[in-house]
């Protein structure tokens, strides 16, 4: 059961009706049951033990901390030790199951030296990770830390804490929620028409992004990447430039579905995207892209690190030694390294460490270092840095930087490198460019039609319009809500028909199957 499947929609519909029909005191229990049902159909059912394990470590560790703090003769370090132990257990489970890509090569190396015969046994020993492991592990860690910092009270009902871990809309793609925000799960919720309308609208918009745009672009990109020797030159550029569109439409489309579904239950989850492609810098980009991951890493990794004694000492020392500017830069270098490593490692594969961690660390550090040079450049040429053109340039630059990173984590390290090299050749090798592919209908060999191309432009245009409205009105739907009902209905019905017809789903129609075969 994926979140774009009919069965998921059916589950949500039935769930939402029950939610407001049942007594309000049972609402959180219903959510728990829905989550279990969803987990049963969407994941390998037995892996729910990992969620139970995580919940239990968090449950007991936080209660022990709380108890310990009430006694006066307990040392300060005790709660800290408990918190660290709980976090370590969770990280370890995650690392073994989900981070296999990070350690299996080392184990394989050892086995191939020590006893090669066992190699097959190791590769076939694939432990299945739990669904949403990356997301709920971070949530649980955040919960333990929040309790340790005493910004929240520990939850005394283990079932409620389990619901916080396993709340079904966010199991597949997040967002990474904070406990304080999700406490509303256990409250009573009154039926509000607005939630129903907004939720349904958001789900529809998510479907449009995911099954009309992302799947279409994805199929096209995949067709090119299947034969990198044949499709070179501008094809490589196309792939590089289309990846971000595909990923944004896919990921943010799923987020829209998730947030919309949750909205039906009057649970308002944190936003994960805020028009990332409008960002002027990469720094800003990551404040608008996968927001909940970025803020999680900032709050639970970067701040504690910077505020740790060694880092404060290091900061003071380097400022004294190298001066204010360079001193600050060095602190940044170290802090950023840890921040970005966490962001990359969390994805669980080396390609993300390269495409996210190292790439952004280098780009941002280089940007920091060269900032004065850029500033001189813009003043010298008298650039109008507040003009639309300059803003566009900055956004394009940010887009390209993300696209380059994306090449790595989509194609792997060597694949990404090969793609970038090929694209580079277009610029540097004479007669390598093949611009005619844009005009000679070559694309039609890649399993797409003119209809698909038109649809791509139409949907991207829609995305841009919605993004602009969002910048201006907070949400596009708030602007739509202010329109007359006829226009509103026209919009939603058109969107519904678009998704219905142009969505990529179902077995597909093949006219040949239907030629009269009755004889």
């Amino acid at each position, binding site marked *: 059961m994926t979140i774009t499947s009919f069965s998921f929609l059916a589950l949500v519909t039935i769930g939402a009706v029950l939610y407001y029909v049942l007594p309000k005191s049972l609402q959180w229990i219903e959510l728990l049951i829905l989550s279990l049902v969803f987990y049963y159909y969407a994941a390998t059912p037995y892996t729910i033990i990992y969620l139970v394990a995580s919940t239990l470590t968090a449950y007991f560790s936080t209660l022990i901390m709380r108890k310990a703090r009430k006694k006066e003769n307990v040392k300060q370090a005790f709660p800290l030790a408990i918190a660290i132990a709980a976090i370590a257990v969770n990280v370890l489970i995650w690392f073994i199951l989900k981070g296999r890509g990070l350690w299996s090569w080392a184990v394989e190396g050892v086995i191939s030296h020590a006893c090669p015969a066992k190699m097959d046994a190791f590769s076939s020993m694939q432990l299945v990770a739990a669904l949403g492991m990356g997301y709920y592990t971070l949530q649980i860690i955040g919960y333990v830390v929040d309790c340790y910092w005493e910004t929240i009270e520990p939850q005394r009902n283990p079932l409620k804490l389990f619901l916080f871990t396993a709340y079904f809309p966010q199991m597949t793609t997040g967002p990474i929620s904070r406990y304080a925000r999700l406490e509303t799960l256990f409250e009573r919720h009154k039926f509000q028409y607005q939630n129903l309308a907004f939720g349904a609208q958001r789900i529809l918009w998510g479907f449009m992004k995911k099954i009309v745009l992302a799947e279409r672009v994805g199929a096209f990109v995949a067709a090119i990447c299947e034969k990198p020797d044949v499709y070179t030159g501008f094809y490589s550029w196309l792939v590089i430039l289309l990846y971000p569109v595909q990923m944004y439409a896919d990921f943010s489309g799923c987020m829209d579905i998730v947030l919309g579904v949750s909205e039906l239950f009057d649970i308002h989850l944190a936003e994960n995207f805020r028009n990332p492609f409008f960002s002027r810098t990469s720094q800003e980009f990551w404040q608008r892209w996968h927001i909940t991951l970025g803020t999680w890493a*900032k709050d639970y990794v970067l*701040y504690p690190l*910077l505020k740790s004694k060694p880092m404060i000492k290091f900061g003071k020392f380097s400022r004294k030694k190298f001066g204010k500017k360079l001193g600050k830069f060095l602190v940044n270098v170290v802090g950023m390294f840890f921040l970005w490593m966490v962001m990359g490692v969390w994805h669980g594969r080396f390609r993300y460490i390269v495409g996210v961690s190292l790439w952004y660390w280098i780009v941002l550090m280089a940007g920091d270092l060269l900032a004065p040079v850029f500033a001189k450049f813009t003043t010298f040429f008298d650039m109008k840095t507040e003009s639309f053109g300059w803003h566009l340039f900055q956004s394009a630059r940010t887009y390209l930087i993300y696209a380059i990173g994306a090449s790595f984590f989509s194609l792997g390290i060597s694949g990404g490198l090969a793609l970038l090299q090929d694209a580079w050749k277009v610029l540097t090798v004479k007669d390598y460019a093949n611009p005619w592919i844009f005009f000679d209908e070559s694309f039609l060999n890649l399993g797409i039609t003119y209809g698909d191309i038109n649809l791509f432009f139409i949907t991207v245009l829609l995305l841009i319009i919605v993004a602009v409205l969002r910048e201006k009105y907070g949400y596009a739907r708030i602007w739509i809500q202010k329109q007359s009902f006829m226009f509103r209905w026209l919009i939603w019905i058109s969107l519904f028909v678009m998704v219905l017809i142009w969505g990529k789903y179902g077995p597909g129609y093949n006219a040949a199957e239907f030629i009269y075969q009755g004889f």
Partner: protein
Amino acid sequence: MTREAVYERLNNVFREILDDDSIELHDETVADDVDGWDSFEHINLIVGVEEEFGFKIPMGKVVTMKNVGEMVDIILELGR
């Protein structure tokens, strides 16, 4: 300690650390309003405040404070 006194000392800390004498803080001031107040300087500012007022601000507060007004509330609460 009055709110005004806290603001006076706070302005000094910010001006010193961010190298900007024009800084004038209010209850509603947020990081985006002040040039150079990023995640890194945030911690430097916190450390500066701690040194100025002579007590530690717990991490939980560091993470959750939304604007300068809240920061002042915390200082007033801890300095009691």
